[in-house]
């Protein structure tokens, strides 16, 4: 028994950090420093290029000897080349930082979602929603890169430019700084104006994504019923709302850019006016006045970029909202750090007065059930009668609001995920097939499974013929982009996985709901045949269940309404490979 060994950043109580805020992610300081240094060199070169050029020209107008200009000529060329190169390394550096951030953000997201599925995300837990979170992480990282670049350039330009201007003539330096600050403030205010519009637009976009998914799911019905107009109407509505948000954002961005442009020229005029006054007062030469003005031009060019970047960052902000909100969702269960579970091998499964609540309503109540090793129990009942809640409580995906579910007398709340996995193999009603090869798909249940045991597990669920038809055997790629599988084949694969896991109990949630019913009874038979002496808790509507299990428990409205002891037919378990025979009832 190895308590939770080999689990890296799992969902243990003391373990994973969830997505919460940008700050909590931290940055790679060395990468950031590298980018900042490059950015500062670039900003300095930009200022240097213009300042030196201005000096060169105005000084040349005084017709000095050529050698006076030669240093400036060299500097101008050096700055010109240095600026491009520095900017290049700044860009790379910042993207390095942001990609690194993205990697960590994804992992946090994984850690955040892990304890939430299944059971903790509610009805929004579909794959599309989950992938939406992943793309949110990408948006955040991208917006981050842009902001960091702008911040580096802006701060470096303002600081360096102000410093140069202050040294040359303090009065001009102060005005230059005031102008830069004014431009920044104008840009920030305009961005705030646009935020409301952007949020509306983002909400409309989210709705659009939902609507698209919704539509595509129902597309067949819509077309068959001739109701495509519903979609058009809905799109038009979303579009109207999105447009009003976009108009506001567009206007705000325009105001921002106009304000910034106006402020830039006004600030420049102020710098010139201050400089000329200082010049007239004899504090600064005509040449140095020109230098001040060119420095101001360089700094204000940089400030003019800010409104554009701020306008773009709205998407990043709404993505961040979504992710941080996700991080605030409570995990339905806390998994223990230490495994108090029973030793490997057959153990009694028991429910003692189990109650499961879901969003405040009782999904299952007062379920008491005992499955000594080898016993097979079927849970039956209408949809939403609490069958799946019972299974989830046993698997510790959801907590027991009252009573307890236990394995070998140990409350499942005290058993680690690994411990539960060693005892119970779970088959969902829709088996997810990963976009990887068949072998890897099976080895999710048992990483060390040999080829022979994989093949045996496939045979046990009636996939022998299917497997034989695969040209690449266990290396055949499945899932998205791989070999298509029918619903039945997928479920059989899920069953094979559960068998391969090697636990002594199988928890089957309508395993044959999507399997061709002419053979589903046979598959269930085969499963039983393959489980041999294992304990089985199965939710099913399959006819003939009474031949396969020892007890049938009927649930209704979360309560047991009927218990029926049945007489298992010892011959019911069929040898593998018998699938495909026609049904006989």
């Amino acid at each position, binding site marked *: 028994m190895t308590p939770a060994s080999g689990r890296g950043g799992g969902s243990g109580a003391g373990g994973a950090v969830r997505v919460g805020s940008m700050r909590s992610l931290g940055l790679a300081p060395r990468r950031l420093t590298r980018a900042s240094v490059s950015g500062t060199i670039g900003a300095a070169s930009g200022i240097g290029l213009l300042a030196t050029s201005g000096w060169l020209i105005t000084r040349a107008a005084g017709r000095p000897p050529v050698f006076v200009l030669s240093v400036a000529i060299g500097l*101008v060329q050096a700055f010109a*080349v240095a600026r491009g190169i520095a900017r290049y390394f700044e860009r790379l550096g910042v993207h390095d930082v942001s990609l690194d951030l993205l990697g960590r953000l994804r992992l946090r997201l994984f850690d955040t979602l892990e304890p939430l599925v299944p059971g903790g995300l509610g009805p929004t837990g579909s794959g599309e929603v*989950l992938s939406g979170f992943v793309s949110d992480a990408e948006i955040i990282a991208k917006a981050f890169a842009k902001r960091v670049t702008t911040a580096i350039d802006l701060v470096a330009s303002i600081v360096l430019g102000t410093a140069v201007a202050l040294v040359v003539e303090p009065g001009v330096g102060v005005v230059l700084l005031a102008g830069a600050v004014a431009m920044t403030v104008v840009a920030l205010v305009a961005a705030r104006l646009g935020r409301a519009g952007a949020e509306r637009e983002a909400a409309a976009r989210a709705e659009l*994504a939902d609507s698209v998914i919704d539509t595509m799911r129902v597309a067949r019905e819509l077309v068959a019923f001739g109701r495509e107009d519903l979609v058009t109407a809905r799109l038009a509505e979303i579009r109207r709302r999105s447009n009003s948000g976009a108009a506001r954002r567009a206007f705000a961005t325009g105001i921002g*850019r106009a304000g910034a442009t*106006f402020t830039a*020229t006004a600030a420049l005029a102020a710098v010139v006016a201050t400089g000329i006054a200082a010049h007239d007062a004899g504090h600064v030469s005509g040449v140095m006045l020109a230098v001040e003005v060119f420095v101001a031009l360089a700094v204000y060019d940089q400030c003019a970029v800010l409104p554009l970047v701020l306008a773009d960052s709205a998407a990043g902000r709404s993505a961040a909202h979504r992710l941080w909100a996700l991080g605030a969702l409570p995990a339905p269960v806390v998994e223990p750090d230490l495994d108090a579970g029973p030793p490997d091998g057959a153990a009694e499964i028991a429910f003692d007065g189990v109650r499961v609540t879901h969003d405040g309503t009782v999904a299952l109540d007062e379920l008491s059930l005992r499955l000594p090793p080898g016993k097979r129990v079927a849970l039956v009942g209408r*949809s939403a009668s609490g069958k799946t809640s019972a299974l989830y409580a046993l698997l510790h995906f959801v907590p027991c609001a009252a009573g307890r579910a236990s394995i070998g007398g140990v409350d499942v709340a005290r058993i680690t995920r690994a411990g539960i996995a060693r005892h119970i193999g779970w088959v969902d009603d829709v088996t997810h097939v990963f976009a990887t090869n068949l072998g890897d798909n099976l080895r999710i249940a048992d990483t060390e499974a040999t080829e022979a045991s994989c093949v045996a597990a496939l045979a046990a669920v009636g996939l022998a013929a299917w497997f034989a038809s695969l040209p690449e055997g266990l290396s055949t790629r499945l899932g998205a982009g791989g070999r298509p599988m029918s619903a039945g084949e997928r479920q059989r694969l899920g069953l094979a996985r559960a068998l391969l896991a090697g636990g002594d109990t199988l928890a089957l949630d309508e395993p044959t709901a999507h399997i061709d019913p002419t053979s589903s009874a046979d598959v269930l038979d085969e499963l039983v045949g393959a489980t041999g002496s294992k304990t089985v808790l199965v939710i099913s509507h399959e006819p003939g269940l009474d031949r396969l299990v020892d007890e049938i428990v009927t649930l209704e409205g979360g309560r047991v309404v009927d218990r029926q002891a049945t007489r298992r037919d010892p011959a019911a378990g069929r040898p593998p490979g018998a699938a495909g025979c026609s049904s006989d009832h």
Partner: protein
Amino acid sequence: MQLPVVRRTVTASAAVGLVSTATVVVQAVALAHLLAGAMPGAHPGDRLTAFVALGAAAAVRGLAALVGETLAHLGATKAKADLRAQLVGAALARAPSGDAGGPGDLATVAGRGLDALDVYIGRCLPDLVLAVVAPLALAVAVGVLDWISGVIVVTAIVLFPVFGALVGRASLALAGNRWRQVEGLGRHITDVFEGLPILRAFDRTAEQRRRIETAGEALREASLSTLRTAFLSALVLDTLASVSVALLAVPLGLRLLNGTVGLPAALAVLIVAPEVFLPLRRASAEFHESTEGLAALGQAMALIGPGDPSGVGRAPRGERRLREIPDPVRVPVELRAVRFEVTGRHDPILDGADLTIAPGETVVVVGPNGTGKSTVAALLLGFVQPSRGAVTVGGVDLADLDPASWRERVTYLPERPALLGRTLAENLRLADPEASEEALVAALVAAGAPDLAGDLPSGLATRLGAGGRPVSSGELQRIALARTLLRRGSLYVLDEPTVHLDAATEATVVTGLRRVLEGRSAFIVTHRPAVADLADRVVRLSGGRFVPAELLAPNGTAGTSPEPAAAGAGAGQ
């Protein structure tokens, strides 16, 4: 690109850009005048006029920025909205034939993918136009001020796009790669997330976490190496721009020494110089971003596609389709030697399949999954067309009928029904927009879901599915069945009508179906004996053909006898 809004946006941006460019020249000349006037021995000149000119330039430039930016953003929004509508429309048209891609893909392209167009249409395209218009206008201004500088500027301007195109082409190819890589990783991660419940149950999340970590790291490396190349174009252009400033400044300085150029002109040229390259640099910096926008646009266009395989949207041009639809209650519906293939499958799904559904006859098809039963349903709906042979109604090829009018005669229950994220009533009224509340409740009762309307907190007005009350697969099936029962059709195409239902509910449903199928034609795919019991005739698909089936005869009604069909035909006439 069929987006006129883009052309309008670009034209407006160009006009606004020209105005803005003119102010740059005014501003530069005014500044140069003020600076030159401060030189030793120079006359200060008219400073007031210069400051007034600066102020006016600021005001006009600001106004131009406001108009230009607002127009650009609005244009981008409109273009995106147009594209999205086209995307969804096209996808909707294709969805029934099954080649629309996953909804997730579409949502990605319609959502995040097209958002890349914001930058492309709102920023990159206008800047691209400006990058052509503004530098040339400024070059003329520079040439007027000093013709030698003008020549230098024009040379640099000509070199710029040449360099840009050379380096940019390479980076475009690489960005396409990067987009695919990002997509690939995104798919991989989605895949892992979708399987997260299973991974958790088998305690394999730690390994998958490591896989995401490894894949993420690989992507970081790959992206960085791509960016190293992609940013080279920016490096080249940045350097060219700043070197051009140096190339202007140095000769100007030297010529000032020997007095062949005046200081005001030289200063004005130098002030204008960075502005010449600003739009070029900005456009090239955005080039990298615009490639993502272009890639998204390409994807969107690919999804929208040229044609309309199912004929759902509009009828193919130049082809008149019959609106007078033969009624399956009176005439037989036939599959005649139908062949149907899907890409990626070696054998055709159907090959020489013949089937006649006589008026009023209920044909049940059984057999293992994957033999083409659902394909036949799609053929009957006209969602897909046979590659050989024909589906006919009263002898008329289905391909010659107006698809929407034909579907008005058909009641369809798909294999995996789905719900709109709307209210229960809205979902039911998909099948019959005019149905009264009583009719909806009656349909729910007949579909074995009497409790559904009553138990829901807001009854029929309860919002279901995404964002609303979660629906179990059993409830979903019963809602879909209620839809089926609400809609009066001449031909019922039901694909696994009672899957997910318990035996008691199934019995209720079968009773309801028996009533509505009276005198109607039906094609029912099922595995359930209780449903097969509805059959006048049971067939199975074998090797792509229909063969008679004799099974599932709990009360001896199933068989190959056509008598009930004949009776139905008689009733219909």
